Every structure is written in structure tokens, then in C-alpha cells.
């Protein structure tokens, strides 16, 4: 009997030993290739090209692992913090999500990288606040994007339309298209359901938008209700395509299902992947404010971070890679292959419209407004995305939608102020 129990204990010990770690801190390993986990699976080809370039330039290769489902990706990264399967580098989100992982001491401090890059003119000081928590910087910009309106130039030309510079002109464009049986705008009930909410908020009352993101204002405040009423007015006017349409927005614009699609400058990659030529097939303009009396035109801005773990296998190699990533040498390649803008001001953007928007954004004439995705804490964001999804299919439900989001916001801010 004692022997059989010993056998059981023996098997258990072997299994447990196999499951557990070695207990002691592993010595730092010198790496020649880093893993980069990201939630941008569609960009794997571009990450691969960066890996080849970095190997050539700094002797450090990089192998990307791309996820296409951001919820699944975030769950993996959070779980990886507690396991030995850790990425060397990973993409994340600025705002509350970056703050969360910094508070848990999971991200490497990149203050020195930022100081060096700003001094060398590779990063702009204006970008630093999005990456600063308690006076220190974390991660570096993987990408930046300015939001505006992509439009089908052939449709515009056919109907004698020009990019609008005021809100009234935009509505005139939409009205002209409607008279010619063309849907003016794209919108969707899934994931990017927030686009028109943030755009109208930023163009009507950007201060209120900022206060919403910090819990100082409520979704049921009159200013927010007015935004939803404006949005409803546009839907009721028949300017939008069906929100349940499953067509990829790139194809929507290319096929002329809608004449205009509002997205970040990264959407330019979708255009180039469809062999569309900037200036000939499509164009880009900044969306004018609804409220013409605002001192600056609001422009939605986003920046996605590239981070390194605080307890990386080879912290020196990870920081070396991040430092290289910010340089013009790396950014030139990263921006050019994707046909996008860059966080590095030295990089020349070949696409005329995107080059112009980058210059405009830094000119001081625009007010950069943090994208809703980054500006809103995850539980409120989830409720809001569902709520806006419901609203676009049932525009009459806007008050109920705002109350539902506020209920989630009340609960969140009661424990996170």
C-alpha cells in the first residue's frame, strides 16, 4: 500500500515538475532575432520586410506573429505576462490600456530612447504626452494616423464635386450625391461603429469629448445628446449605406457603393493594395467642423505603440530595436511600403494628400483629438461600440443607447477615478 502511494506521489511529482518553471531567474540571453507580436495580421508582409532591413542595418532580425482579432490578441499578451512564452516586442494601445500595463510594471521604460529621438529630430515632442505616464515614456510609436475622409475621385468628378472645406459644403456634396442615387457615406454596426460619434463630437464640442474620456462628463449630457441627434439627422437624410453591409470598406470606396469613407491614414494601405492611385482614383480631405465657431479644426489622431517587456529576455536588444525603429532609416521603409504617414518628421511622404495632412497636423491650425478607441476605457468602449451598433440600425434608440453607455461609465469611474 505504501509503495503504491509512493508511486502516485512519484508520478505527481514528475508531472508537476514538468508543468512548473525552474524557479530561479533565467540568465539574460543574447538574441540575434526578436519576436514581435502584433494585432495587425494584415501587415505581416510589411513587418517581415522590416525584419530583413533591421537584420541588415543593426544585426538584429525580427519575426512577426500577427493576430487579426484584437480581443484574442490582448488576452494572449495579458496571459503572456505570467508565463515563459513572452514576446520580445509587442504592439499595444495608448491611453488607458497602456496605463494599465505600466501600472503592473510589465513595460520597459523608454524615456532614454525618446530623449535621444527627440534630440535627433526623429520624434516630435508633441507625440510624447501619448506615451508618458507619471513623467516617464513607455514604448515608441509603431505608427501614427490622422483621420479624415477618403473619397472616390471618379464619382466626385462625375458629379462636378470638390472636397469640401466647411460642414455646409460637405452636406451639399452629400445632398448632390443623394440626388444622383449615390450613397455619400460609409458606416458600420460592428467595431468601427464609433467613427461618426467621435467625428461629430470632435467637430461640435471637442472639450466635451475630452471630458467624456476622463469621466468628467456624462453620455447623457445635453451636448452628447445633440451629437446623437445630428448623427440621426444624417442617417434619416439617407446619406449612409446600410450599416449591416459586410463589404470591406476598401471595396465600398473602390466600387462606389459609398462615395466617402472616414478612416485613419492607414486606410491608404487598403487603397494601394487595391491598385488605386492617389489623386486619380481617390483623394483625402480633412473633415470640417460642424461648429464653425471653433478656433481650430478638430482632427482625430491615433498612435499605436510598439513596446518592450520590462522583463524581456534580452532587454538591451529590445531597446536597441525600439531605438532603431524611430530612426528615419527604419521609418522611411515602414511608411513607404504601407503607403502611410510616419511618426518621424524627417520622413518624406510621397502621397501628396497624406504629406499635406502630416504638415497640416503639425502646423498648429488643427486640434488633435485622441481617437475614441484609445481615449475610452475598455469596459465603456465595449458598451459604446455595442450601443452605436444598435443606434445605426435603430436611430430612434439614441437616448436608450446613451443611458446604457452611461450606466457602464458610472460603474467604471466609481472605481477608477
Amino acid at each position, binding site marked *: 500500500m505504501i509503495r503504491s502511494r509512493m508511486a*502516485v506521489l512519484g508520478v505527481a511529482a514528475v508531472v508537476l515538475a514538468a508543468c512548473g518553471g525552474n524557479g530561479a531567474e533565467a540568465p539574460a540571453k543574447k538574441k540575434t532575432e526578436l519576436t514581435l507580436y502584433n494585432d495587425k495580421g494584415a501587415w505581416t508582409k510589411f513587418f517581415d520586410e522590416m525584419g530583413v532591413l533591421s537584420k541588415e542595418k543593426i544585426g538584429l532580425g525580427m519575426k512577426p506573429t500577427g493576430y487579426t482579432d484584437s480581443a484574442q490578441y490582448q488576452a494572449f499578451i495579458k496571459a503572456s505576462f505570467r508565463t515563459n512564452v513572452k514576446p520580445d516586442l509587442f504592439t499595444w494601445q495608448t491611453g488607458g490600456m497602456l496605463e494599465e500595463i505600466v501600472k503592473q510594471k510589465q513595460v520597459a521604460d523608454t524615456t532614454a530612447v525618446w530623449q535621444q529621438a527627440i534630440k535627433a529630430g526623429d520624434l516630435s515632442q508633441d507625440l510624447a504626452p501619448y506615451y508618458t505616464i507619471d513623467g516617464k515614456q513607455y514604448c515608441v510609436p509603431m505608427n501614427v494616423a490622422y483621420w479624415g475622409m477618403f473619397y472616390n475621385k471618379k464619382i466626385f468628378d462625375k458629379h462636378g464635386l470638390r472636397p469640401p472645406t466647411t460642414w455646409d459644403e460637405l452636406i451639399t456634396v452629400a445632398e448632390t450625391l443623394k440626388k444622383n442615387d449615390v450613397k455619400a457615406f460609409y458606416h458600420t454596426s460592428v467595431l468601427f461603429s464609433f467613427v461618426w460619434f467621435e467625428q461629430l463630437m470632435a467637430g461640435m464640442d471637442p472639450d466635451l469629448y475630452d471630458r467624456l474620456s476622463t469621466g468628467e462628463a456624462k453620455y447623457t449630457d445635453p451636448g452628447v445628446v445633440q451629437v446623437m441627434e445630428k448623427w440621426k439627422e444624417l442617417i434619416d437624410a439617407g446619406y449612409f449605406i446600410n450599416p449591416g453591409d459586410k463589404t470591406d470598406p476598401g471595396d465600398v470606396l473602390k466600387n462606389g457603393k459609398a462615395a466617402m469613407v472616414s478612416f485613419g491614414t492607414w486606410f491608404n494601405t487598403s487603397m494601394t493594395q487595391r491598385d488605386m492611385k492617389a489623386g486619380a482614383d481617390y483623394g483625402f480631405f480633412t473633415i470640417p467642423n460642424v461648429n464653425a465657431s471653433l478656433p481650430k479644426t478638430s482632427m482625430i489622431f491615433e498612435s499605436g505603440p510598439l513596446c518592450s517587456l520590462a522583463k524581456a529576455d534580452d532587454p538591451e536588444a529590445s531597446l536597441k530595436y525600439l531605438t532603431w525603429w524611430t530612426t528615419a532609416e527604419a521609418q522611411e521603409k515602414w511608411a513607404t511600403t504601407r503607403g502611410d504617414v510616419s511618426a518621424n518628421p524627417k520622413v518624406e511622404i510621397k502621397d501628396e494628400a497624406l504629406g499635406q495632412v502630416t504638415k497640416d497636423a503639425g502646423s498648429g491650425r488643427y486640434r488633435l483629438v485622441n481617437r475614441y478607441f484609445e481615449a475610452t476605457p*475598455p469596459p465603456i468602449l*465595449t458598451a459604446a461600440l*455595442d450601443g452605436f451598433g444598435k443606434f445605426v440600425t435603430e436611430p430612434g434608440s439614441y437616448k436608450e443607447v446613451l443611458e446604457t453607455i452611461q450606466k457602464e461609465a458610472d460603474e467604471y469611474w466609481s472605481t477608477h477615478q
Partner: protein
Amino acid sequence: MSTRTPMLGRFRLGYVAPAALLVAGLLYTPFLWTAYLSLTRYDGLAPPEWTGPRNFVKLLDDPALLTSIRNTLLWVIGTMVLPVGLGLLVAVLSYDLKGGAWYRVPFMLPYALSGAGLGLVWSPILSHDGIANQLLGVDTAFLQDAPQNTLAMLLVWTWQQLGVNTLLFVVGLQSIPKEPIEAARIDGASGWRLFRYVIWPLMRPLTAVVVGLALVASLKTFDIVWVMTQGGPGRNSETLAVTMYKETFVASDYGYGSAVAVLLTVVTGLASYLYLRRQVR
């Protein structure tokens, strides 16, 4: 006196231990951990913070949960009526036909698709400008309004599941003894009466398995809904499993998501227990 060999007796616990440890490690431990998390506030990063039954109190006050329960019920009832009910009908009508197997082949083929693949294939067909609207000459938002979107997904689910249920029922029909059926036929029973009073009772053990499996599968419906509508628009097509996933991994509210998981486990366990207890009585 035991007939076991001394060797087997001595090491019997050792033989069982690896499997027992695997089950304990991969099933019971995560379940207990989930039950613990349901009583905490946890974002997946900071250590869980004990809150007691707060998440369950929130569950009772959550209108989205009521929608999830309604949709899950629709899935359960719909699965019993369509894939299971129609599966039985196709089996009964085709099992003693000459070449009946060939009639059943088209029903079997969709079973080769996974739930996610099924959603990917049918989502564009049922979308606003999809083939379904064009073929039917209508302008219906199949996947937008509730409960129409759940019913549309149920039809897709039926398309996939009908074949395997038919196959199981055919196996059941072929395995029942012929003598009672022949005796009943000699006594003048035929058609519906033969099926209702002779065939159906003889098939009861197999029906219990088919219905039991369908019950559990419908209670945990996730993949097809997630791929086709992600539980939306709004939250109007969410099932309990989708709510659990969204709260946990999308909203990063692991505590609340765990509470939904516990509720789903209790509901599935209870439903299975009540059903099987009735069947094996």
C-alpha cells in the same frame, strides 16, 4: 477474495493517476479558478480584488443578460425542432427506401464545415446585399433585427447539423429489433401509429443521446454567432456564451465574464441532469 493480480492491485492508483491528474489540472482547477474569479473584480492584469457576490447581483440587473437568455432559449428550442426534429423526419422517411443512403448524402456534406467556416460562408449570403435577398427578391436585413437574426442563424445551423442527426437516427432505426415491428404490422399497425407506439419507444435510448448532445451544444452556442454577427447589432443576437466571451476578453471584465461562465455552467449542468434523469428513469 480478490481475483486481481497482486501487481495490478499494488499499482492500481498509479495507473489511474496520470489521467486523474490531467482531468484535475485541465478541468477542475480552471473551473474552480473561474468560480473564484466570478467573486472578484479582475482586469486580467492586476491581482483579483475580492468583491463577493457583486458580479451576480449585477447579472440580475443587466438587460443584456435577459437578451442573452432569450436568445439561448431560442437556440435550444430551435435546435430541438429543426436539426433534431427534421433529422428524425428525414431518417424515418429515408431509412428503408431503396438507395436511401444517397438521399441522405447532401444533408451530410455541410457537416464537414466548422462553425466558424459556416459563419464565413453564410454571412455574406445573408447580408443586406447578399445572394439571399437577390434570390428571394426581397430587401430583408436577415442579420440585423432580433429575433430574426437568431432565427436566420438557426437555419444555417440546421443546414449543417441536419445530416449528422439524420445519420444517428438512421443508425438507431437500423439497430432496433425487427420482430416487434413485424408483430405490430401483423396486428394491423402502420404509418404514424406504428412509429408512435412501436418504433419511437424502441429508439428512446438513442434519442436520449441525440437530444442530450443537441441540448448541450445549443446551450453553448458561440462560434457561428461570433462570426456572423458578433452578438450584434447592439447586443441583440448575443447568447450566454457570446456574452461570457465579450465581457471577459473584449471588455476585460474577467470577474463579470466569469460570473456569466458560472451561470452558463449551472444552466447547462442542470438542464442536462434534469433531462437525463427523466430519460434514464
